[in-house]
């Protein structure tokens, strides 16, 4: 399970809440691997691509 959140501006507390919700929901999903990332609104395609690749890699998906 790979989950991507979008934030209007960087906010560490909200990001932590999001990550916790993903971690906890992954248990109910019986997810074999899970991870989450936050994209800041306005990020460019390259940044989004790198972040997405890194997220997928973290859960064992190779492209």
């Amino acid at each position, binding site marked *: 399970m790979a989950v991507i959140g979008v934030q209007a501006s960087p906010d560490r507390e*909200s990001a932590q809440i999001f990550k916790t919700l993903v971690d*906890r929901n992954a248990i109910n999903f019986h997810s074999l691997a899970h991870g989450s990332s936050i994209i800041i609104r306005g990020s460019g395609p390259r940044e989004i691509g790198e972040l997405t690749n890194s997220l997928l890699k973290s859960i064992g998906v190779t492209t």
Partner: protein
Amino acid sequence: MSQNKRALLIVGSPRCEKSNSEAIGTYLMERLGEKGVVWDKVYTYRLTRTAEGREKLLNAVYGADILVLASPLYVDSIPSFTINAMELINEHRRAIESPKEQKLFVIVNCGFPEPSHNQTALAIYRRFALESGIEWVGGARVGWGMAIDGRSLDSVGGMVKNLMRGLQLAAGALAGDIPVPKEAEELISRPFMPLVLAKLMTSVAGGVGWNSEARKNGVRNRMHDRPYESD
């Protein structure tokens, strides 16, 4: 000091009057009432369904100086209609040039014995307050709600004495315009009984319930199946 102060209890449970959120919140509001605070209550489940209800909700919220939000825990988060109410309140306040000064105190309750399960929901409420320009004055976590079962706290007995004491302290602080002391949050969040005992009782009661459901559905011998387990 608190003569003209107004407080609003926002009940965030679909069980409305029969909920633990109602029982806990009303106890706090009654203590506020004793201190001269005029109070009222609303139910997000009912009011968020219609345009008229949503307007009523916003008017009630805007008329209050102190907001007390009491809600159940839904999968580490908040019931959807209560999230909807929070979004409406946030949008309303953002649309006003100088929104009124308001305080928010939150109580989240859950069925798990450990009150700590409510921590993430409480963090979400805190973010809501910060992003809406409402002063966050504290929050508390109540576990093992089944012990209250929607009854008024006075009728539950000694098990909830710490909860009631904490709510009394919180009411004193809210009415007196001083920060809610950590002691109040700690008393409200204290388990009703030793956790080991509460867990055992929950496990026994849960076991009876699940086994009975399994028998009814003819899957009693498949209770330990792990269909999603990988090799």
